[in-house]
């Protein structure tokens, strides 16, 4: 099911006696979620991701704008008529019902023409359970399951009524790191298999990057960029997107363009003859550093962290925006030992330039 958001806006009245006006949680969203894709809504906490999800499922009414499922305008439909499945952050499994009863619950709500016989319901529930591989847990209560198992039950319950779209609100945030990796693969597999258009909210960029077909990066209720994860990573539209995506994050330096040359401090690092003189922020991905004895860019070495395949070099530099920068270099590279100075060359393709004030990308 293709989902279209048209000019979608949600405003909340500001809280507290003194504060006035309103908070715009979702600000003029205008994009299309293609059929059968997995979309990651990505942004820091409080950026309006969950509000957007609640608008999609109908728990919240938009202040402005329309939502279409396919060609049908669902903006004014209540949640129960939208035929969406939702996986909540805390799973919201009914603790007094068994796994089977939990999965059956949405089916037992069906009325009229949609009503199923008991045998059909049973079959559907068992199919859903099989899909998420919890077939042997049907008689347990949620309290007797691990976090990962509860997650699967929640997904089965959301899928059993064959929703038009599947919504997931931070589905992995309650799992430990290892389980998170497994479960996100699992979500990917289930989504591919069922081909249900899925919207998935997260603040974890790695999570979003790893399983989404498309990511929507949000900040303060405004969509910053939409695209395939790798494209957004490689080609960020602005400083926020560049610094939000990637671990370790991009290194930012105060810089300037002077007569067609990009400087960080006094070091010219890039030729940009077409660009006018201006103050800029220079972003260099951690993998954009090449240690070299006669490298142009000298900085103070703070530490070296060996992580198997790679080595992470922590350095400081007067032009660095953050307290310290981090470069990822391969373990084979020659690092000066016993010195507190390290010199790098930059890989030009890993350098991004941003306007000093607007923070927009300079190309």
């Amino acid at each position, binding site marked *: 099911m293709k989902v279209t958001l048209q000019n979608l806006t949600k405003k909340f009245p500001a809280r507290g006696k003194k504060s006035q006006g309103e908070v715009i949680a979702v600000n003029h969203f205008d994009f299309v979620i293609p059929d059968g894709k997995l979309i990651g809504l990505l942004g820091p906490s409080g950026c309006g991701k969950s509000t957007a999800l609640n608008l999609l499922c109908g728990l919240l009414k938009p202040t402005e704008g329309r939502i279409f499922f396919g060609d049908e305008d669902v903006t004014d439909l209540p949640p129960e008529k939208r035929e969406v499945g939702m996986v909540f952050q805390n799973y919201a499994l*009914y603790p007094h019902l068994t796994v089977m009863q939990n999965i059956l619950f949405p089916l037992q709500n069906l009325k009229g023409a949609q009503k199923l016989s008991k045998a059909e319901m049973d079959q559907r529930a068992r199919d859903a359970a099989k899909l998420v591989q919890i077939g042997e847990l049907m008689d347990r209560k949620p309290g007797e399951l691990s976090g990962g198992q509860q997650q699967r039950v929640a997904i089965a319950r959301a899928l059993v009524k064959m929703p038009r779209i599947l919504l997931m609100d931070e589905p992995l945030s309650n799992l430990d790191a290892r389980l998170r990796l497994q479960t996100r693969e699992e979500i990917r597999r289930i989504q591919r298999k069922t081909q249900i258009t899925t919207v998935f909210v997260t603040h974890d960029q790695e999570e979003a990057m790893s399983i989404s077909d498309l990511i929507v990066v949000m900040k303060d209720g405004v969509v910053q960029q939409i695209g395939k994860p790798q494209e957004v990573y490689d080609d960020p539209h602005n400083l926020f997107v560049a610094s939000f995506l990637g671990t370790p994050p991009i290194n930012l330096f105060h810089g300037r363009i002077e007569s067609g040359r990009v400087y960080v401090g006094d070091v010219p690092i890039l030729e940009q003859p077409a660009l006018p003189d201006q103050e800029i922020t220079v972003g260099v991905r951690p993998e954009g550093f090449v240690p070299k004895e006669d490298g142009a860019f000298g900085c103070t070495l703070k530490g070296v962290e060996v992580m198997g395949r790679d080595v992470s070099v922590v350095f400081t530099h007067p032009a660095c925006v953050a307290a310290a920068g981090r470069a990822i270099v391969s373990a084979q590279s020659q690092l000066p030992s016993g010195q507190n100075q390290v010199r790098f060359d930059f890989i030009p393709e890993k350098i991004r330039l941003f306007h000093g004030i607007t923070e927009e990308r300079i190309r």
Partner: protein
Amino acid sequence: MEKKSVKAWLYLLPAMLFLGIFLIYPLVDVFVYSFEENYNFASQSYTGTGLFNYSYVLRDPYFLQALKNTFLLVVITVPLSTGLALLISVGLSSIKPLRELYQTVFFLPYVTNTLAVGLVFMILFKRTPYSDGFVNLLLSLFHAGPVDFIDGPYGAKMLVLCLYTIWVVMPFKILILTSALASVNQTYYNAAKIDGTSGLRIFFRITLPMISPSLVYLIITGFIGAFKAYSDAVALFGTNLNAAGMNTIVGYVYDMLYGNSGGYPSYASAAAILLFAIVLTITCINLLVSRKHVHYIS
């Protein structure tokens, strides 16, 4: 380990002493009295031992009347007050404007003095030389009555007693249930809503099981409280409850000890032990039944 347990006993000692002297010892004592015929406090003497006290009490028409009154009170007020409190709590939880005001209003009877409530009921129900009472005034609008609710037929008196009891016990139940309802996580309701669950089904399949521990607590304490009813009847019908035919078991025990027919600790003890046995049995049944239907969420 040894040292630790000594310490533990030391900490428990004040409570154990207190409970031992004022609860366990009297309980045992009452149990003993109930088998001693014609026990006399002053001379500390008795004339024989056996089940005589029980057979006397069980044949005493006043006791049987008290037993009937108490059972009626329990059977009528516990389900009604709990059910009404549940309805009101659900109502309170689903409204937004003025919720605090309503909560306060519904809680007021709890902080109001029993005798003040009794006074209000007198104004409502009691016939005086000047007025037939407010309720009779209302009844007369429908060309019914007047009914003497305080000194009249048994049914009318029982009705007033039940109304009074329900009125007095409900605020506490509303308090407990509204907080139980408030503690149900909103996401369960959101999940149910998205799945198209009807309001009635949400109530019976989600809300009710979620608040069942509080509900069972209220039912069990409600049963015990109603079996121990006494002051309510006194507030309405005065101290001579036997004459009014509105005595309760606790009232009967009191009368046997101190009332006009008082001075019979043996009979009082037997009646008290009978009440104890009844309450114990009912509570055990309650616990057994509720075990199947209550969902404690760890």
